[in-house]
């Protein structure tokens, strides 16, 4: 059976103003259920690419299809998560998770049940009625993840979701994220600065290089699943790290930093 492609970009470009080319000539296809890591140095256009796919900003050239339809604006099958949790301080965890339903006017007992379940799933049992200010940074991101699950979106765009957290928390949340999005249904694009993290999580790593922002390489990660932390010391893993480094180095040589 042929893979179903959920996202396709061809010659996709985004320019800000006269001379900032944030994304140029991006060509990619993303099969349903895959986990894509988007890695690259700061300012290379990762967030811009994600915002294009999410429909938050308009492309300036090329084609971008989600489920074979041109992206024209935010869609309900795409959900986002940011480096900041972006919780509403005046709402408890469960009320924050219910925000998508509230906005869509689909809030009812059933929605509340699902919100409850999502909070259990992300490990927030007993914190359902805490306010964001009463939660640690890691827990706040868990609420944000539960809210993302609540949208019912099966395309998840994560922009450095755990980038502001300490390393221990980040590794734990990465593993929990993998557990949640595994399976053939949920397609994930995960932005990160961290090469190891990118490889560890992904089926495929897109390496982006700056000025102009391009996808310089798309590397299939052929490591067994489910992943575990011991794999990060294997020669295969280090091979992938080296590959990514080479791509970045090749493009960064002689460029002003």
């Amino acid at each position, binding site marked *: 059976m042929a893979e179903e492609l959920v996202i396709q970009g061809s010659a996709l470009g985004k320019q800000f103003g006269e001379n900032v080319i944030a994304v140029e000539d991006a060509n990619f296809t993303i099969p349903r259920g895959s986990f894509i890591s988007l890695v690259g140095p700061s300012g290379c256009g990762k967030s811009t690419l994600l*915002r294009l796919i*999410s*429909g*938050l900003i308009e492309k300036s050239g090329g084609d971008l299809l989600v489920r074979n339809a041109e992206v024209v604006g*935010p869609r*309900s099958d*795409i*959900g*986002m998560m*940011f480096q*900041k949790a*972006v919780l*509403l*301080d*005046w709402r*408890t965890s*469960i*009320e924050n998770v219910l*925000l*998508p339903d*509230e*906005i*869509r006017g689909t809030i009812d*007992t059933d929605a*509340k*049940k699902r919100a*409850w379940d999502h909070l259990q799933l992300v490990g927030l049992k007993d914190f*359902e*009625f*805490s*306010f964001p*200010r*009463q939660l640690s940074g890691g827990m706040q991101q868990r609420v944000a993840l539960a809210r993302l699950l609540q*949208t019912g979106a099966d395309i998840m765009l994560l922009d450095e979701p755990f980038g502001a957290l300490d390393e221990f928390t980040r590794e734990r949340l990465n593993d929990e994220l993998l557990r949640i999005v595994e399976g053939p249904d949920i397609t994930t694009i995960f932005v990160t600065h961290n090469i190891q993290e990118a490889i560890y999580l992904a089926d495929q790593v897109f390496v982006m290089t700056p000025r102009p922002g391009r996808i310089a390489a798309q590397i299939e990660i052929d490591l067994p699943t489910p992943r575990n932390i011991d794999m990060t010391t294997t020669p295969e893993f280090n091979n992938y790290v080296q590959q990514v480094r080479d791509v970045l180095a090749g493009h960064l040589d002689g460029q002003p930093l």
Partner: protein
Amino acid sequence: MSNDQEASVSNIELAADYKGTLGGAVLRHTIIFFVIMFIWEMANRTGFSNPLLLPRPTDIVASIWKIYVTQGNVWYHLWVTFKEAMVGCFIGCVIGIGLAVAAVLSDTFRQFLKPYIIIVEATPRIALGPIFVTWFGFGMSSKVALAALVCFFAPFVNTITGLLGVEEESYELFRSLGATRRQVFWKLMIPTALPTMNAGLKLAVGSAFGGALVAEFISAQAGMGILMARYTMSLNMPSAFAGLLSITLYGFILFRIMEIIDKRVLYWLSDDLMAKKSVKKETKIRGELGL
């Protein structure tokens, strides 16, 4: 049970602020207060200061008794000033917040408004008192108008600041969820701006009395301003001081009330109110879900 414990813990914390027991602190403040009053009284009685200009504490107390109880005339004037100040404050706040919202929602309007706001900011608002009295007459309207003008600015500036403080990511979240402009406004912008807006409202309430009083000083038939002007004009200084103390006291009470409202509305900034709210919501939602 646990509530009792919390209460006693917070009492200890409160007492700790005073270094020593609460009773000791009260005693100390009382003694210091009476010593100052005694020196003041004595300075007056020995002819060191002029009792005609700086009345004795005992005379002020007697005047307070007089204007509140035996004559009882102060109540009416207090009510007049209070009414002017509050109506003016309400109008000023509504206009201030209204203009601020319009300025934030429309860039064109903001650009249009900017020079006028700079002019208003540079003008001491009180200076419009005589003009307002000429425009709106000697009655209540001129006082209301000046109180409104004095109150307008803080809510205006604070509402703009608060609304512009919404982070870009929050807008993106709402947009990615398909929120309408109305939803973004009510569910995101207003609650985010509320703490700053409330601070502006508190400032406004505080300045409202001043605005009404100044207009009354200029010309009025009733109100604390004209009452105090009459007392000083006839050199009845004890009563003038009694009036001044009244205004201070009511200003203080009003400020405390505003603080209490503020805290209740902004429950998510107060640890104990958050805890209470959590419990309430937990009971409700658990009940609904049958958990």
